């Protein structure tokens, strides 16, 4: 676990411009590796948005954990949080855009005091799939949050939880000491409520590699997770989403500090798979920052790469202005296009 956020420790990489500088220089400026944009040009491909399916809303960077790999640089010391006024704009956007999925992320999205109001509004507006990306430990942190699993169930929320491994050692190394045990307790409570067992209560887990390597086969890892979690803790879940670590924020810091950056970028570029391009999540997602600013994805949000065009905020964008818009890319995009591809819903192949 990281001791504090990059921002709190006044690390150079807390500034997205510095991160983009790293991703633009070295291997890419020397021509040793092609930039993502050049790779697209070589294929005569341009990434454009299709139809909006997923409204992904970042409710704030505050989190009760400070994970080593966090691309948000979230933690208890981050105070950025979505205001009540911006939540109103999100609700208005749900009415206007009618997304199939509302994907609530953070930080720990539950820590936003308006979380429950937003969920209730989305339920009343009949959003088909309301996802909460829960770190699990927040559900065990105090009596207030211990009531959240029941709230999830009452509102039919789809729970997507981070669990990087079924072994305590690997999970705690990435997410902090004691995280694994608390996560297991939270998963058991979710199971007791029917999550992962009742077909209407979906519980998916998110795996991301604990280091400078790509995830293996999602199917094989899911089978291993199911077997081990069932045998060791009698835990059930639906799907395992494998997500590639993108070279930004704290994971970029880790790559540079451990001298794995160049090899990791070479691995990503070598694993570039053009067939993933048509299914990248940025083509059907609109990512909303805590201040209502708009991005193609959560990673672009953290790098402060806005959507193309002059409408940069949720309340400015008209419903007919989402589709057929150029998607801004940078070298981190290799992460989503590597191997089987990666998205917030796991592998895309």
């Amino acid at each position: 676990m990281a001791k504090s956020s990059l921002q709190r420790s006044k690390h150079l990489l807390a500034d997205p411009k510095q991160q983009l500088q790293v991703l633009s220089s070295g291997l890419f400026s020397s021509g040793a590796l092609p930039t993502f944009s050049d790779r697209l040009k070589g294929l005569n491909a341009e990434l454009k948005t299709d139809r909006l399916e997923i409204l992904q809303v970042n409710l704030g960077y505050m989190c009760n954990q400070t994970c080593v790999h966090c691309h948000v640089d979230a933690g208890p010391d981050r105070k950025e949080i979505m205001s009540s006024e911006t939540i109103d704009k999100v609700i208005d956007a749900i009415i206007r855009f009618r997304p199939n999925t509302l994907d609530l992320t953070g930080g720990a999205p539950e820590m936003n005091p308006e979380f429950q109001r937003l969920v209730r509004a989305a339920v009343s507006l009949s959003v088909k799939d309301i996802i909460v990306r829960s770190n699990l430990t927040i559900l065990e942190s105090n009596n207030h949050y211990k009531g959240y699993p029941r709230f999830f169930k009452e509102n039919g929320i789809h729970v997507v939880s981070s669990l990087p491994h079924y072994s305590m050692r690997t999970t705690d190394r990435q997410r902090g000491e004691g995280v694994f045990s608390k996560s297991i307790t939270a998963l058991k409570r979710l199971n007791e409520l029917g999550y992962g067992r009742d077909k209407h209560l979906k519980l998916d887990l998110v795996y991301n590699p604990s280091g400078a390597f790509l995830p293996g086969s999602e199917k094989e890892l899911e089978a291993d997770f199911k077997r081990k979690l069932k045998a060791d803790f009698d835990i059930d879940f639906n799907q395992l989403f494998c997500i590639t670590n993108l070279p930004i924020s704290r994971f970029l810091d880790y790559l540079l500090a451990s001298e794995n950056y160049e090899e990791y970028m070479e691995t990503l570029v070598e694993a570039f798979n053009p067939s993933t391009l048509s299914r990248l999540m940025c083509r059907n997602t609109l990512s909303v920052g805590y201040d209502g600013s708009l991005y193609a994805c959560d990673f672009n949000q953290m790098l402060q790469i806005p959507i193309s065009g002059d409408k940069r905020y949720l309340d400015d964008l008209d419903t007919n202005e989402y589709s057929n818009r150029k998607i801004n890319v940078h070298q981190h995009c290799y992460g989503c296009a590597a191997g089987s591809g990666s998205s917030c819903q796991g592998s895309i192949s």
Partner: protein
Amino acid sequence: MSDTYYDPKDLKNFKKITDWSEPLGTRFFEYYSKVFEEGALSAREKSLIALAVSHVVKCPYCIDAYTKDGLQRGITEEEMMEAVHAGAAIESGATLVHAVQMMNKHKKLSH
């Protein structure tokens, strides 16, 4: 040219062995990838066997490759270390079993 006998970058050039003998190299790589497919043994089990053998034959390229492969497959540190011990046990056993030959020869030559 590297100053050492082993250069990690050489692993990436492994496929170049086909440049000097295309049919043998190609057949080797076809055989190699077939061996590590799912079969009566899972690809995960084969990865652990490969890791153990990598240590026994003391191939630094193979150790790098199968440590990374194990990580990608979610293989735990304990499983990896136990696999290496299995290889080490066979290797040391193979040395020690020759002690019987030594004992036999000793008996034959001495009063």
